[in-house]
């Protein structure tokens, strides 16, 4: 098979979706992890369990919930469609949200562990030295938890890149619109095109490996003193 004839759309879409989902996970997950580590209340425990649910639930079940929550008949879905002409289901936005939901637990779990493992006396010391909580987050907590947060980012990205079930449920499998790499591989296999399947699988593996390798290098060279 000729490589120039290969449709790269699924690969690019996959990377875009995984990247956006990871950025969303960072933006939502890190503050959430911070508040969860600060609070020991029952509500925090409940929130933690709810946020872990996507790891244990079947992707199809998760996708179904998302469809109910964000579909065209739902409150949020119809509101967005009427006011902003934005549709979530069967669009790349849906794929991004699906990928975010399955990957955010990894971000929150690892970041929370990283924050919790910081000696509480460091925070007390910083407070007694006159710093505000936000300042302490920026100058003490984040720099010390950065390593854990980075592994959370890697795990989230990897999970978002590989998602199949939830994406299929929410975004469908519309060629050149919502077909991500895992779906393209499934299609190729189903069509009996082993050559294409092999190639797509190889690309996926190489891309995933390169990203993980680069992140590890980044971790080694930039963050280690």
């Amino acid at each position: 098979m000729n490589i120039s004839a290969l449709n790269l759309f699924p690969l690019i879409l996959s990377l875009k979706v995984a990247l956006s989902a990871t950025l969303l996970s960072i933006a939502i997950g890190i503050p959430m992890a911070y508040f969860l580590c600060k609070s020991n209340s029952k509500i925090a425990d409940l929130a933690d369990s709810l946020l872990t649910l996507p790891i244990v639930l079947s992707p199809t079940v998760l996708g179904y919930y998302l469809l109910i929550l964000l579909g065209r008949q739902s409150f949020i879905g119809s509101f967005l469609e009427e006011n902003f002409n934005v549709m979530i289901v069967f669009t790349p936005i849906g794929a991004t949200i699906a990928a975010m939901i399955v990957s955010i637990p990894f971000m929150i779990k690892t970041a929370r562990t990283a924050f919790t493992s910081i000696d509480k006396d460091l925070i007390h010391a910083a407070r007694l030295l006159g710093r505000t909580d936000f300042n302490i987050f920026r100058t003490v907590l984040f720099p010390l938890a950065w390593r854990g947060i980075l592994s959370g980012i890697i795990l989230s990205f990897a999970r978002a890149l590989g998602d199949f079930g939830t994406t299929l449920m929410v975004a469908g499998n519309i060629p050149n619109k919502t077909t991500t790499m895992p779906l393209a591989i499934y299609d190729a296999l189903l069509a009996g095109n082993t050559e294409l399947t092999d190639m797509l699988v190889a690309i996926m593996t190489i891309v995933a490996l390169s990203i993980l390798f680069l992140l590890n290098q980044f971790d080694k060279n930039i963050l280690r003193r």
Partner: protein
Amino acid sequence: MLDVTIRKSLGDFKLHANFHADNEILGVLGPSGSGKSITLRSIAGIETPNEGRIVVNDRVLFDSREKVNILPRQRNIGYVFQNYALFPHLTVKENIAFGLQGLNKRDKTDRVQETLHIFRLKDRENHYPAQLSGGQQQRVSLARTLITRPDLLLLDEPFSALDNHIKRHLENELLEIIRNNFTGTVLKLNTFYCQLVDVMDGTFYISITVNCDNHFIHIDMDKMKWNCLAKNIRDKVYLHIPPEKIFFIG
């Protein structure tokens, strides 16, 4: 000057702390679990007492009746933590400068350099805490808090992991630096080296060794009745023993 009257209960543990301290180094004694640390943490604002009043140099930091509870960052209290709590990702210089805010860069650099000199840390300014010895870490911790010119200095039981000989040496070094550079009230938690000498008629006779001044003091509590322990271990009270100015919790 420090005035403390607080009550705090944690489960069935009840702490009553009621004492006054002038501008001096005051040792606080008591076995572990007797509430020494909670007392210190309450003064710093890390813990909130159930009721009571804390006054430092005529400034009310906490008053349960008047509903006053100043935030830790506004209390202007120096605190040396048991494990020093140095920021591991910052150098000695950055650690020391951490509490200096609202100063221009030049003044800040001057103050930091002056402090590095006083605390004999000049040659360690670019080291990280992990690269320092225990004694140096302790000096950094003290420097970091004294540079902010606190109204009150609290020392949580340092060197608990060290053996007595080195401990005594480091404690003396620490007290010397404090005496030369700080004029306010110092509250210092002391490990309780207590030895039971005799038990007679239900009374405990003990000898204790403490270090809360320039000199290592050995107080032989000859025939002094210490009924507290015998009566009720859970009921915490401070006993005042003049003239050495040592408070007991226990």
